[in-house]
Each structure stands twice: as structure tokens, then as C-alpha cells.
């Protein structure tokens, strides 16, 4: 098996002002090369924390994280992150935002023209080649998120980490970008780990859905394999019995077996 990302017995404890907060407990997860995995759970269950661990932005309190058999010690361009709120630099144009990433990864071996061509190609891939010279505040939220994805893809990462990338978008734009993402992932054969709280999004996109229990000390409750053929079409799937079944499985987990932590505590 070519397991690509391995999380072994990861624990995450945050030291807060109110004391220690046990966020993640005993996380074990393996992601295969070329696999699309989503992390789903109620808000505050630590799914973003887990993603940050894989990204290397935070270091686990205990446990081991491996990417391509090497320990994850710090963030790096081979694990590109698309942040929840796009995080484009407002003083740079779309092209410059992407170029900043490209320059860092390929600057040593390629000429300036090649680097610019790469940046433009990445923006073309997400359909943003019409807005090269625009600044982030001049384009819509969906476009910003596309540029964010382009920036991540331009680095040719081994893994694409998406932290609720479509969370702040309206339903139509979100659907559109999901379809785009499906195409891009199919074309680039990327390995993707994505955080979401949207059940439909998870079922539509994933090969496997990692369902997390509620925090504190959240852990992986269940992992659901979604065996729907690709390419997937959201209209056809809407009436597909397997799709409906997967969707119900996730909803069941989230609402019947692991209702909101607030209710349990009350």
C-alpha cells in the first residue's frame, strides 16, 4: 500500500488561560496517494486542528505524523493549504499572490518567464486568467477562493489541504466550485484532505469521509468509504440510492449518535 499521510496516536492539548484543553485524542488516520478524504464533524470538534497538524502549522502534543514517510515537523509547500477565508494578500494582485508561491518553490531552477507562465497557468486552471491584475478586494468571494486554490495548486503540492474552503460562499457558488474542484483533482490526481461541515459536499467529493466525535478529546468516530463512480455528477447523484444512503449514514452519525456537544453537556 502506498499510504501517503499517516497520523499515529496523535494527541493535541492546548494550554489556554482557563487551563488545559484536550482537543484531539488518539487520532489514527492513513491517507492513500491520490485519495480525497474529508473530515466532517460539528463545529469545535477539532477537525481544523487536525488539518493544521497535517499542515505542520501546529505541533501535536504526542503522536507521530508522517507525510511520504517523513515526519511532519514544519509547514512546507509540499502540503499546500487553502485557508477558510482565502488569505490572499490584499496589496498584491491575483497574479502576484500566486507568483509569491511559485517563486518560492520553483525560483531556484526556472527562469522568470517560466515562473510567470506557471502562475498564469494555475490561474487559468481555476478560470481566473481574466483577473490577473485585479486585487483581491476587486473580485467576488468565490473568485478569491479560486485564486486561493490556484495559489495552492501552483506549488504542485503532494497534498492539498482545504480548510472549509467554500464555507463562506453562497450555495450556488459553492456548488459551482465543488464541481470545478472535482475536475481539477481528477486532472491533477491530487491527494486531498478537506475539512467541511457540509454533508452533501463530503459525499459528493470524497473517497472516504472521516467522521469525528464531539470535543473535548475528540477522536475519529467512524470512517465511511464512498464507493460512487467518478466522474460524479451532482444532478444524477441526487436520486442515486447509494448517494442517498451515504448521505443518511453521515447525517445519522452527526445528529442521531453524536448530537451537538452543547446538548449533551446541558
Amino acid at each position, binding site marked *: 500500500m502506498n499510504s501517503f499521510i499517516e497520523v499515529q496516536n496523535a494527541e493535541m492539548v492546548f494550554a489556554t488561560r482557563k487551563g488545559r484543553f484536550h482537543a484531539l485524542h488518539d487520532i489514527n488516520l492513513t491517507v492513500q496517494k491520490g485519495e480525497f478524504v474529508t473530515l466532517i464533524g460539528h463545529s469545535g470538534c477539532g477537525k481544523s486542528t487536525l488539518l493544521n497538524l497535517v499542515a505542520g502549522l501546529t505541533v501535536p502534543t504526542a503522536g507521530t505524523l508522517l507525510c511520504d514517510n517523513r515526519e511532519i515537523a514544519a*509547514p512546507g509547500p509540499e502540503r499546500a493549504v487553502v485557508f477558510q477565508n482565502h488569505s490572499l494578500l*490584499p496589496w498584491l494582485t491575483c497574479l502576484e499572490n500566486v507568483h509569491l508561491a511559485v517563486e518560492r518553490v520553483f525560483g531556484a531552477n526556472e527562469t522568470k518567464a517560466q515562473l510567470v507562465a506557471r502562475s498564469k497557468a494555475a490561474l487559468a486552471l481555476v478560470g481566473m486568467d481574466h483577473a490577473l491584475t485585479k*486585487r483581491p*478586494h476587486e473580485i467576488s468571494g468565490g473568485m478569491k477562493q479560486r485564486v486561493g486554490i490556484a495559489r495552492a495548486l501552483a506549488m504542485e503540492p503532494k497534498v492539498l489541504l482545504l480548510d472549509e474552503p467554500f464555507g463562506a460562499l453562497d450555495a450556488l457558488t459553492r456548488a459551482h466550485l465543488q464541481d470545478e474542484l472535482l475536475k481539477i483533482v481528477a486532472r491533477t490526481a491530487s491527494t486531498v484532505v478537506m475539512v467541511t461541515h457540509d454533508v452533501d459536499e463530503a459525499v459528493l467529493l470524497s473517497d472516504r469521509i472521516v467522521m469525528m466525535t464531539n470535543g473535548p478529546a475528540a477522536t475519529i468516530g467512524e470512517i465511511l468509504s464512498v464507493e460512487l463512480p467518478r466522474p460524479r455528477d451532482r444532478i444524477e447523484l441526487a436520486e442515486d440510492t447509494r448517494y442517498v444512503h451515504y448521505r443518511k449514514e453521515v447525517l445519522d452519525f452527526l445528529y442521531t449518535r453524536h448530537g451537538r456537544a452543547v446538548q449533551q453537556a446541558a
Partner: protein
Amino acid sequence: MVSAVFHSPARALPEAKAAVKNAVAAAPPAAPVQPPTASVRPARPSYDWRELGFKVVPPIVGLALLVGIWALLTMKSTTFPTPAATFAEAVKVFSDPFYSKGPNDQGIGWNILFSLQRVAVGFGMAALVGIPLGFMIGRFEVLNRMVSPLISLLRPVSPLAWLPIGLLVFKAANPAAVWTIFICSIWPMIINTAVGVQRVPADYLNVARVLNLSEWKVMTRILFPAVLPYMLTGVRLSVSTAWLVIVAAEMLTGGVGIGFWVWDEWNNLNVQHILIAIFVIGVVGLLLEQLLVSVAKRFTYDDV
């Protein structure tokens, strides 16, 4: 943390937008400055006179009130000059601003220029030291903890308390005045730059970490642009302080300069000149501030 007076970049935006709106409102009539008698087409949707009146009339009324009260109070006074006398004197002073009759008698133009030069040198050096220091304090927590108490201690010290130190070290009046400007105008720049660095959104720094940017790129592409609006606020506050301090410093050190001019005219008991100086100091301060506000506006970005 040191607390700072700062203006968020976002606050400058509504003003800018309002300005744009006004500009648009002013656009339709071809020549809005023309008196109403000149416009032969009254049917056209006319300029919003009411808004203009609301903007222009109150300041004029305020100024008129001040001059009026001044005139009333000085009607029977023999020592305090009337507005009319002061105005007549001002016309005389400004008709020949650049004469030079020895070191103690020079035109008001020279006095202003010499003061501005001292401010430029002192303030420039403060910027050269203060802004990089602010960056370092913002970036390194250890340094922040080390320097913050010192800043809190030294910042409220009156400008004039620094003057003897300058005189002692430099053994000359002019460098001592420049030193006083330097030490008084450095604090807003240090503090605002440091606060700006500390408030750089964590997201941007995360981007830098994921992209694995070099420290130089982090500095030029992320920190500097993000901090610039804060920094410019510091610069603005500093310039105001510097201009505030120069008058006091020059009063004590002498030489050619607007502050010394005030003191000299006091010794000559020429109150009209003192009043003119106060007005001039105010106007120059206002212009300096406006200049930097316009610079700051150019460098603020829409953070959406």
C-alpha cells in the same frame, strides 16, 4: 503591551468615500464656482448648495466669532493689539519674509524654514531609528518585554526635560534642539509600528509559513505592507509632536527659528508679532499633518 494611539486603516476609508461622493455631487454643473447670476439655465438640477453651505458657513462663523470677541475685548486695551492692527502688521511682515539683518533679525520666512529644517533632521533621525526598532519590538516578544517598560517610563517626559541632556552632550544649542525633537517624536513611531506588526493577521503569517517564505520576503511582501498604515499613523503623530516641541526648544536655545522669534518679540514687547507667530505655527502644523494624511490615504488598502 504598550498601549498606543492608532487609527485603523479602515477608519480612513469612509472619509475617502465621502470625499468621492462629494466630488461626484459636485460634478454635474459645468462650473460650480460661478455665481448664480451667471447660470442662465435654472431648470437644470442644481448643485447641492445646502450641503456646501453646511460645510463652509460654520467654520467661517466660528472664525468670525473668535475675531469678533477678540475685537470686543481689545477695544479699550492699550497693551493687547486689536485684530485690525495685527492684520496690518501681518501684511507688513509677509510682504518681505526673506530679509536678513544679522542673526537676530531675519524675515519670518527664514524663521519658518530654519525651524522646519530642525524638525526635518530630528524627525528624520527619529524615523530612521524608531521604525526599525518598532518592527523588531513587534516581531520579537523578548525585546517587547525588555523595552516596553522603558518606553512607558520615558514617553510622558516633557520635551524640555530632555533639552539639558542635549546641551550637556552636544555642547551646542542647535544639536540640542534637534536632539529634543528626536527623542520626543520617536515614541509614536516605535509604538505604532510595533502595534502594527503585532496586529498583522495570523492568516498572513500562516500563508508565509506554508509557502516557507524567506525572512526577507516575509518582511517585504507581508509585514511591511501590512504595517504601513499603522506606521504612517505613527509618523503623522510624530510630526505633530515634533512641530509642537520645536517652538519650546527654540525659545530656550535661541538661533533663527519661529520659536526664538516668538521669544525675541516678547522681549521687544511686540505682541502683534507673537499673535502672527501663533497663527503661522498653527497653519504650518496643519499643513504638515494634512500632507501626511494624504500620503497615508494613498497607502491604505481595502482589506476585504
